[in-house]
């Protein structure tokens, strides 16, 4: 990852969402985006220029735009129409970003658009987050990386964040993934756990 004086940045066309620029690079704010928050908290994660990424839960394209700055190709899946309007606009200016309007729960529908990827990055506020990842694993090559941004509040409000994380870890192991790193996103995002797995 590219750092300028301790700040995570990405190299690409700025002005996507009013992000600050530093020496001509786009500042990637850990308060706004979960990926840099995980990296600051010690996640062993690196985005490289030869990577192909399947991004589930792309929303407005804020984080996606930074990921696209780093990697070769991003397939960005988003379900809701309103954020999709913004995502299309971001994608129009980034030739390596493929926006797909579809439900991450139903990979059989958008499967005809997606190639094999080196990384799945998932950030969806749904109760069945582990299951969504399992359904999308066929797109991930062997040895590929799965990054799960687990939002405990969406899974079960009654349970503690740690409990949900533990259950999810078990579910991930059961689907054959090896968990390389797991940690919270405090103090940047509350009740979130980031899990990095390999297939």
């Amino acid at each position, binding site marked *: 990852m590219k750092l300028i004086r301790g700040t995570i940045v990405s190299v690409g066309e700025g002005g996507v969402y009013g992000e600050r620029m530093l020496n001509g690079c786009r500042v990637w704010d850990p308060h706004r985006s979960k990926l840099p928050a995980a990296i600051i908290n010690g996640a062993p994660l690196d985005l490289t220029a030869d990577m192909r990424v399947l991004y589930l839960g792309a929303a407005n394209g804020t984080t996606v735009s930074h990921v696209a700055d780093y990697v070769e190709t991003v397939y960005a899946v988003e379900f809701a129409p309103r954020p999709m309007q913004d995502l299309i606009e971001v994608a129009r200016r980034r030739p390596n970003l*493929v*926006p797909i309007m579809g439900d991450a729960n139903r990979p059989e529908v958008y499967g005809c658009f997606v190639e094999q990827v080196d990384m799945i990055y998932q950030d969806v506020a749904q109760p069945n987050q582990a299951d969504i990842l399992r359904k999308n694993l066929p*797109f991930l090559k062997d040895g590929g990386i799965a990054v799960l941004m687990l939002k405990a509040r969406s899974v079960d409000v009654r349970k503690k964040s740690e409990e949900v994380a533990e259950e999810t870890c078990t579910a991930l192991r059961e689907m054959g993934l090896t968990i390389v790193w797991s940690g919270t996103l405090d103090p940047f995002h509350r009740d979130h756990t980031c899990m990095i797995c390999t297939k």
Partner: protein
Amino acid sequence: MRSYWFGDIDNGVCTPAQGDEDRVLERCDTIRVKVDTGFVPVSVDEACDCGFFADREEYLARLRSVTIRDARRKIVAAFSEGDAELIQMVRMLDEIDEVVNLLTEKAVEWYLVRNPGFSRKYKSMSAKRMVGVMKKERGPLGRICAEIDGLSDQRSSLMQDVSKRTDAVMPNCSALVGGLVAARLMERAGGLSVLAGLPASTIQVLGAEGALFSHLRSGSPPPKHGIIFQHRRVHNAPRNVRGKVSRAVAGKLAIAAKIDYYRGELDPAFIERAQDRIDVVGEKE
């Protein structure tokens, strides 16, 4: 045979998808990839070997053009269902309410400073009338109060628009609990299709999420009603049967939403039966 957006590949034999982008998308709509068993994702190299594309760059450009078109098409479809604009209208209505109240409050404070002898006590002056009085003040306060007045007129007319549109979009819910309450429920659910899929128990507490989650977390008493409390038969019901009435209303609403979404027209016989049932529940005890 493996089917992808650009065509089929069967034992090395490539058949490209025919027609323009719209035809390609129509075909994509019918493709259901079996992701579980022996799934082979798209291979760009393979697609290029088939001669469909010169290189990866061309492949991506064409793919993006197709998926962007697909997304645009789906956005248009989602927004043209009539409930999308209704949601925005309801949100604007509730926001204007809030803004008018806040502005009026501030204006009254201002007015009191300019008129030290004035007090609202014992005058039973509604906010609306108070604004009417303050409008006559000279200078900036009067001008601002004229704006507040105009805004509350807008609010009234928007409310009528909301009712009218709700009658069209969800006639049965609207007939059962009135346009405004029906529209607010739909807004909270996030759309008519979502509302139609909700169980009655969820509809009953829509809008009381705070109380509901505090109940789930710490065992405080569960909420009896959310937005449906605004319906007169719920808030006018005697306290001891209010929960019961609320449950009956929610039950009938769940059915009404399904009729609205799947059939889309008013069912007077259903409405009559539903009203009777709710009235019976309210009279008990």
